[in-house]
């Protein structure tokens, strides 16, 4: 098992190194971080020259990249164009994104299991067909568009009830003061729309997967034999079939985690959460090489760890993988 993990890691590290150089070089080539400064009233040439020197803009890109790698190896991801240390900046934004994801995943799983298992138990029923249409529609809908639709629905809901219950921007109302309960209600009101968007998108694919897995299990010989032994159907499905049908989904969820993070990046931009998505957009727009490259390394590391975790879960559940 240890050798398996080491092998996987050995594959991942060069990918991170190469892609970090590409991001570094592309962002550095895309523009001038001091462009805005240059276009501002009365900025003295020596001010621009000094900033340019601080940011090492006069040095060739490979040299700047190597300097960055040397510092990054010691855990220092450098500072942003505005002088803020990159590592805490990324951690803060990652925390925001994870908060949305960690709530959306269980919701998505619950929805997927309900729809998937329900459809599998009654194939071609109204529930199955409705579930299929809904899943397909959601799979085909771009995530930012779905987010926009839900946002509009949320605003109309508020207009109908005459007060703001669900919020469309941010994680909480700024400067809000009051009881613990009031704060919790406010936070929840901000979480509804983005979490729902992300959960719906995740649920769509997973429910199809859950349906297929459940149908397969329901036709497995051990289920047939359980039925043949005269066990009640509820026990056959609830204990024997469902338990086994849920195992593959666990691994799929772990593997899909990276994709959900990607989706979250779009969702948070629509709902104005200051998470990883906004950070990347700002870094690219601002030609901020350190932030963009740091972003890539941290995100890639998170994805690698999650994929390893997915492998471990799968291996634990299915000995054939572990031994392969």
């Amino acid at each position, binding site marked *: 098992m240890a050798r398996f993990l080491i092998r996987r890691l050995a594959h991942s590290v060069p990918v991170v190194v190469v892609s970090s150089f590409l991001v570094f070089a592309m962002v550095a080539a*895309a*523009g*001038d*971080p*001091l*462009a*805005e*400064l*240059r*276009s*501002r*009233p*009365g*900025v*003295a*040439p*020596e*001010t*621009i*020259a*000094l*900033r*340019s*020197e601080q940011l090492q803009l006069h040095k060739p890109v490979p040299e700047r990249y190597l300097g960055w790698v040397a510092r990054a190896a010691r855990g220092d991801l450098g500072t942003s*164009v*505005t*002088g803020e240390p990159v590592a805490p900046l990324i951690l*803060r*934004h990652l925390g*925001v994104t994870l908060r949305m994801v960690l709530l959306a995943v269980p919701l998505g799983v619950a929805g997927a299991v309900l729809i998937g298992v329900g459809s599998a138990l009654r194939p071609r029923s109204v529930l199955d067909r409705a579930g299929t249409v809904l899943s397909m529609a959601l799979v085909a809908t771009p995530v930012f568009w779905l987010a926009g639709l839900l*946002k509009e629905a*949320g*605003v109309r809901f*508020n207009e109908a009830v005459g007060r*703001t219950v669900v*919020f*469309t*921007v*941010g*994680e*909480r*109302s*700024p*400067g809000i003061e009051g009881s613990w309960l009031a704060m919790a209600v406010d936070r929840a009101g901000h979480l509804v729309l983005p979490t729902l968007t992300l959960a719906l998108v995740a649920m769509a694919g997973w429910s199809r997967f859950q349906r297929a897995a459940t149908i397969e299990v329901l036709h497995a010989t051990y289920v047939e034999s359980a039925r043949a032994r005269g066990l009640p159907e509820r026990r056959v499905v609830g204990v024997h079939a469902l338990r086994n049908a849920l195992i593959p989904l666990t691994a799929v969820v772990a593997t899909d985690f990276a994709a959900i993070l990607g989706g979250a990046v779009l969702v948070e*931009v*629509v*709902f*104005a959460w*200051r998470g990883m998505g*906004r950070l990347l957009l*700002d870094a690219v*727009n*601002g*030609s901020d090489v350190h932030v963009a490259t740091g972003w890539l390394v941290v995100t890639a590391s998170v994805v690698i760890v999650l994929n390893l975790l997915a492998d471990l879960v799968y291996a634990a559940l299915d000995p054939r993988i572990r031994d392969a």
Partner: protein
Amino acid sequence: MVLAGVCTAAQGSTRSRESNGLPSFVSDIEDRAPGGSLTYAAEQEPTGFNGNTSTGATTAVKNVTENLFFYAMKARPDSGVDYVGLEREPKVISSQPQLIEWELRREAIWSDGTPVTVADVQHYFEQVMLKDPAQVSTENANGYVNDVASRVGYDQITKFTRVDDKTFRAEFGPAYGDYRSLWTDIPQARFMRAQRGGWDTGLDDTPGPSAGPYLFKEWNKGESLVLVRNDQWWGSPKPTLDSIVFRFLPDTASQVTALRNNEVDMIYPQPQVDLVQEIRSLPGIRHSIGFGPTFEHLTFNLKHELLSDRAVRQAIAWGVDRNEIVDRLLKPFSSRAVRVDNSVVLVGQAGYEAHGAEYHSADPARARAALDSSGYVRGVDGIYEKGGRRLSLRLATTADNQLRAQQAELMRNQLSRVGIEVRIETVSARLFFGERLPGGDFDIANFAWAGGPFPISAAKQVWQTGSDSNYGGYSSPAFDRAAAEGAVELDRTDQLVLANAMDRALWEDLAVLPLYQKPTLLAVRDRFVNVTDNPTNEGPFWRAQVWGLRKKTS
């Protein structure tokens, strides 16, 4: 560098405001009910509180510090100047050498109870100009120590003298005509001295005591910044709002939804037709459109082989129908949008004169005649040629700007009618301002300059021979002479005469074709009163002390 200074196209206030219920700047201040909190959707987050560092010299910072720090003056919407922090207008003690005296408001105090004194101003000045011979290098010939965005004006002061706690004098060498613009956005000296980060980073997280109508309360990075009422404020009228919340929402679409959903109370986005229509349809929201201090224009690259010919520039000036641009792109949301015929003094500013009369309306026949007389002949496809070279020019502008994309398309069609081919090139703003313009890599560039109530130093930076921001490579003895005289002229009226002389030189040589002033859009929830835009670069926060909740009529 860009056209410097604070400015004002006061057109945005009384004369050209599309009033949808918002009071104009001179109208009475409405009665206010006590309390209330106004949330503003800020497109950008401040980087700190020092508004004169290379990272802090942004509108995002100024919007916050405008109500915190000491200001000797603020620009009014009508391009006049209010000496908000002074006892009186700065006094000219002598003009040869130029010696000016400022007297700070006697009652001005910081929120910690200590008076605002000459020590605060002097410390600011010393930090801006701090030099160390050890720092001298090729990039930093003067050996400046601190990261200062602009030293304009301060670097002309040869001697700073404290007269008493509230009075000081500055001697300028040579003369500096725009001395009225100095001493704004000044933090407390005692606080700055106590900060370990000093000038460069000492104010990154907190501004210290306030000399304005509001106090800094908290800043949740990435989310919001809160100011609360400063009950100790010495000015009048006293603020009544409990707090102003800056909520950081970078995306305009999110801002509008948040306004509709009661999550923010005020937005100040870049106007576009569909956006204005959407805001018009929102119940309980009032909006106003003003005309700002930035104006769109075409800058010609005078080093370009074809554009160095004045006849070609004339053909463009006659070929581009500026009235059609205004009618089609701006009139749909503001009936009072106008063409601007002066690149130095803007519409609505005192002293504005419309120059370039022969180009006020498009004249394709005259455009063609100019090309014919310069030896151009029309090719088979209708595009002029001379010596085998087609009259085909690149029009560079910034990407992701709907208005600019539309006007570029419009100008391409207009110019194709007179036989000039235009190839539109849109590049990212960073590339455009960072490389294309400074590198002279353009034929015609469409972008905006900001004017101000101090037009001479602004225009001088842009069109004086050899100036950094003189991207088109313009050089004119007439312009340079007027600019040099204007820079040392102390009288406001005479300054404006010289400013207009500078613009006449620009029209004579057709170095630049001004198009129109960019509109500003302010939308505010009806519950609040006295929130008005100052379409100079002061913006809507110029007078936040008068904001308040609408008084319920009984």
